[in-house]
């Protein structure tokens, strides 16, 4: 028995030793200058962007023969599992594609390097990026943790044939307006585009809301606490913001009437049969459902352009999101950046690579592939031109940026915990199990996280 206890003690000690070896290095500023050479690893998640970045890596190697960049691509879900485990084990990639919803936690735990020194010493021009993108990556401590690589906004993807059949024009779809009270011309259009099994439209007498063949507006889900593609393009027009300030707000506003009225409106058009019930959206992606001809309009992000325009036998058009009570449109403005792992053994080379990724040389390459919008303003124009060459007019995405009708992706701490509370709460409201006012209670739970 004593022996057994001893063995357990040894095992426990080993376990403690294991768990203690996680921390990170002392200095958390990325090195600039110094000799940059050797191998560095770079991770990203979007396979569609891999070819562009592989070319960047090849070009970079030509310019810096001493540095080899090895790219590993892993799909979104697995990507973050691997990143987290890499941090825990202190290996992970030297440089990786970072997301706004994640980087707060990385900063808090000293997992990524600040880039201020590098930006200063190597004269990185922060003004070359679209307005606001560079500032998204400044942590709570005032330091900069990423250099922007691309951005995305929201637009309406619509089925051209259905719109034409309904007697609507592209111009009409481009000038829709919305209010939370009656839904404005947006709701009228959505209603008109909804068709039941008997061919009756949503705004006609005798419309059967329980047997809808084509919904006017598709639904991806309840959007949890963020609603990027689900509802943020409407809540944003009411003057409502997710948090008291952004980035690094400490109080969420889900108890605001403007927000709850908007969500209640969404529920109302589900009730009227213009949008599918929440329970029917669990399964195939909203884009696939759109391609199957089950919805006339989808609100979705610019990173989905390739997906929508790739479908066979479906004629896709793009329209900007509707204007709201204040007469303006709104779209969340989200961007990705590249960050450096604090555990990198080669900070000098890693820094050089991050700077290259954030430079016109690489972003022009990305632009030419017409997959996403690069962060540098001029590269954005090049990307728009490249899309045009593929006969996709992306004005509805770029216009919001030009008109400054975007608002930034809400960055706070506890992002995952907020999601854990808001997902079921929003599901409850969208499915009609709970009234929109129940979000006030969820909001107090969320805000309790910040006390």
């Amino acid at each position: 028995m004593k022996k057994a206890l001893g063995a357990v003690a040894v095992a426990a000690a080993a376990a403690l030793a294991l768990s203690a070896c996680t921390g990170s290095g002392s200095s958390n500023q990325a090195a600039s200058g110094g000799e940059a050479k050797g191998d560095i690893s770079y991770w990203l998640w979007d396979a569609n962007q891999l070819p562009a970045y592989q070319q960047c890596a090849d070009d970079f190697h030509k310019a810096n023969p001493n540095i080899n960049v090895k790219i590993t691509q892993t799909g979104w879900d697995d990507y973050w599992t691997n990143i987290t485990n890499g941090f825990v084990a202190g290996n992970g990639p030297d440089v990786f594609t970072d997301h706004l919803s994640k980087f707060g936690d990385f900063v808090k735990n000293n997992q990524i390097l600040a880039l201020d020194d590098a930006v200063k010493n190597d004269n990185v021009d922060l003004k070359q990026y679209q307005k606001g993108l560079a500032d998204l990556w400044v942590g709570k401590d005032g330091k900069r943790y990423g250099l922007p690589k691309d951005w995305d906004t929201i637009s309406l993807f619509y089925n051209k044939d259905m719109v034409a059949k309904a007697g609507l024009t592209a111009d009409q779809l481009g000038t829709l307006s919305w209010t939370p009270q009656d839904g404005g011309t947006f709701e009228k259009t959505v209603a008109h585009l909804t068709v039941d099994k008997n061919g009756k439209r949503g705004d006609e007498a005798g419309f059967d809301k329980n047997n809808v063949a084509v919904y006017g507006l598709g639904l991806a889900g309840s959007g949890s606490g963020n609603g990027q593609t689900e509802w943020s393009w409407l809540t944003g027009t009411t003057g409502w913001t997710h948090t008291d300030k952004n980035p690094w707000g400490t109080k969420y506003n889900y108890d605001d009437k403007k927000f709850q009225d908007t969500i209640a409106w969404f529920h109302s058009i589900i009730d009227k049969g213009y949008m599918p019930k929440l329970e029917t959206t669990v399964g195939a992606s909203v884009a696939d459902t759109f391609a199957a001809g089950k919805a006339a309009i989808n609100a979705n992000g610019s990173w989905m352009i390739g997906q929508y325009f790739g479908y066979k036998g479906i004629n896709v058009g793009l329209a900007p999101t509707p204007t709201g009570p204040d007469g303006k449109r709104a779209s969340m403005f989200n961007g990705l950046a590249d960050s450096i792992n604090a555990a990198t053994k080669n900070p000098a080379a890693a820094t050089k690579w991050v700077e290259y990724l954030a430079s016109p040389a690489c972003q022009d390459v990305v632009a030419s592939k017409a997959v996403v919008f690069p962060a540098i303003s001029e590269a954005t124009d090049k990307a728009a031109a490249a899309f045009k060459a593929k006969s996709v007019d992306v004005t509805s995405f770029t216009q919001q940026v030009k008109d400054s009708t975007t608002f930034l992706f809400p960055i706070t701490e506890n992002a995952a915990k907020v999601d854990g509370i808001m997902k079921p709460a929003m599901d409850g409201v969208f499915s009609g199990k709970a009234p929109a006012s129940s979000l006030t209670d969820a909001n107090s739970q969320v805000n309790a996280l910040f006390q």
Partner: protein
Amino acid sequence: MTTLTSAARRRRPINWGRVASWAALVLAIVVTVGPFLWMLRTALSNNHALASQSSSLLPADFTWGAFARVFGLQSQAQAQAEGGSGASINFWQYLVNSVIVSTMITASQVFFSSLAAYAFARLQWPGRDKVFALFLGTLLVPAIFTALPNFLLIKNIGLLNTYLGIALPSMLMTPFAVFFLRQFFLGMSREVEEAAMLDGAKHGRIFFQIVLPNAAAPLATLCLLTFIAAWNDYFWPLLVGNDPAIRVLTVGLGVFKSQSPQGAPDWSGLMAATLVSALPILLLFVAFGKKIVNSIGFSGIK
């Protein structure tokens, strides 16, 4: 068994119970095979046409493209035109990796587990039953406990992105393998062993020359089950073997799954990949299955 057949023959020719039995069996086969036909239909479709032809039972815009993607034979532009991701897939490399890892795991795990099972079933030593209960207890350990520390351990001994790193945690034992074999050894006749024992044979010789050959059927069964489990494992190889050179099939074929939030998978590619990667096990089963399935005989499992 022979007695039973003759008993069956004695019955009257029309037997409604038998009709119902066959109906149930046919239903089970239909439910089992149906989804595979749907996989095949999907694999032979153009991914971009799948959604718009979701109610057709035939392949949507028939193409071999998905299979070409799986084998990495499609150019990037071609792949993207058919709804693939365009990432390169080194199918044969992944296949070789999977074969190596699964073989390492299977051979080693079954061997070491059989050693342990023999000690639990046949040898007499203090604490035996307690240790066995502990082993069994590992069936209850939530995977969430083990993934992270094991990952750290593999990393600390420098085995990340190696075949051994992927295989090691399941090479020495799994509770199921030990449990399974112990049950068999308990049921095996002791007479031969005892005779050998009287002749002065050591346990090592008895184990290798008597016990193992007599347990060929259960060992083969366990090998097959272990191989299938190793072949299909996804989470662990992803953690420790994400390097493209070392990726096993399940991890490598992850490129067919949805790559970005809100995105949709390359269904055609995923289904083609699934069918292709199940093929080696199927062949294995065809080769050995008859023997395994017919002679499994839990002859007196206790």
